[in-house]
């Protein structure tokens, strides 16, 4: 889609080195508006590093990054820790963007947490926090939405709902979406392109094409098969370690 328009963002041959360790080796990534791209890969594959480079939070050791001029990015960080000493309601947290009350209410409604508007941020559950963070990212009316593990700490029913919500937002606002995910199962249904990362891009493309790719199977084969069983009884972050230990055998 939007093949005629220039991409929102194009990263070419991005490498990041920390000390002696190469975190990323020549990764490429292109994002078009209206497209959902999901980065998957095991722990330490450099997913978050690539996202940070794309966001401009980190300098790449080498490679090129082209971003559309004045690109508005809505960012949902992986973790949010708010000091207990800071009294901060959801409403005040969202007003830090400088947006008006009506917009705040509208976006909280969109992410389904309007009733939490006056709750203290520190009292939110994991899933509620994710939805508030998503509302904050949307408040900037972004052309590009960057979501670092958006379903972290969300139960299985909530995960599916959140992915559906993200697809719906893309359909309504025609923004580009870059997601990071450990999920192999749920995310497949709601993404246009999957980029499988393990320091470098192993394979990328349509989810169906990628799941048949030998590089993908080598990296995720066992974990992908195990994922359904893992999901039925996980409640928290345990799926991370469960998947990862599976991958190490792969």
């Amino acid at each position, binding site marked *: 889609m939007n093949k005629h328009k220039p991409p929102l963002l194009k990263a070419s041959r991005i490498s990041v080195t920390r000390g002696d360790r190469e975190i990323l080796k020549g990764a490429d990534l292109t994002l078009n508006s209206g497209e959902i791209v999901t980065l998957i890969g095991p722990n330490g594959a450099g997913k978050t590093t690539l996202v940070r480079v794309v*966001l*401009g*939070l980190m300098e790449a050791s080498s490679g090129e990054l082209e971003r559309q001029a004045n690109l508005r*990015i809505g*960012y949902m*960080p992986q973790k*949010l820790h*708010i*000091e*207990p*000493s*800071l*009294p*901060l*309601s959801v409403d*005040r*947290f969202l007003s*830090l*963007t*400088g947006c008006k009350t009506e917009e705040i209410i509208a976006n909280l409604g969109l992410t389904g947490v309007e009733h939490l508007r006056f709750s*203290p941020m*520190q*009292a939110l559950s994991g899933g509620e926090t994710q939805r508030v963070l998503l509302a*904050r990212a949307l408040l*900037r009316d972004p052309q590009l939405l*960057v979501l670092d593990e958006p379903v972290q700490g969300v139960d299985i029913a909530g995960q599916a709902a959140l992915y559906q919500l993200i697809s719906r937002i893309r359909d309504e606002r025609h923004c580009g979406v870059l997601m990071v995910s450990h999920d192999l199962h749920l995310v497949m249904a709601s993404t246009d392109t999957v980029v499988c990362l393990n320091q470098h891009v192993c394979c990328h493309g349509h989810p169906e094409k990628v799941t048949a790719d030998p590089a993908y199977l080598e990296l995720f084969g066992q974990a992908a098969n195990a994922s359904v069983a893992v999901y039925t009884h996980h409640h928290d972050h345990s799926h991370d370690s469960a998947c990862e230990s599976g991958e190490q055998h792969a």
Partner: protein
Amino acid sequence: MPEFIVLALLAGFGVAIVAGPLGSFAVWRRMAYFGDTLAHSALLGVAFGLLLSINLNLAVVLVCLSLALILVVLQQNRVIATDTLLGILSHSTLALGLVCVSVFGDQRVDLMAYLFGDLLAATRADVITIFVVSAFVLLVLLKLWRPLLAITVHEELARVEGIPVTAVRTTLMLLMALVIAIAMKVVGVLLITALLIVPAAASRRLTHTPEHMAMLASVLGCLSVIGGMLASFYWDTPAGPSVVLSASSLFLLTLLRKQPI
């Protein structure tokens, strides 16, 4: 009321009012140790002032501001862990200040006044200096309130949203250095951090928004100044430590109330 008491109260209020919001940031951003380091370096400023025969206030401000900038640079380069760095600088500057003051200062230098404050000796010039600096810092805080809060909540989120994080953070540190320089007169270099942290911590339990917490911290700070002055007047206790103790008493009182989330 004798003039020296009026001047002492005014000086105390001037510092307490600005210490409210600034101390709140110190609490939210866990900058207590940073404040201590700057405060200790203030004594070095006194030593330089005596050595070079320049205005002591100016010397203190210059040393505090320079140290704040040095800390910003060192923190960014991550040479060593921040608390180790602060621990080294904090006590080295205090020790160097003590050595310098005793070597270069003459008999007229009252070391105790610098260490623990000399509120009752506040002059009109002191009060004017305090109010000018305090008003300036409050104005900058007001202007930068939203970006300051945003970087306190989540620095990277703020950066992606277009806030110049480094500039805002550096400004906060410089403001802290300014306030420490004026607060030295009130409670002395060893107790300045208490005046920043304690009223803010007490205010936390009674408020639900960052703005209320900052404002109430100012009010509690002023009450502590009054309490400290009363104690000093009736029981002849040293004024600076008495102010800090009344702030601590207020904090203890707020413990009776359950902490809201």
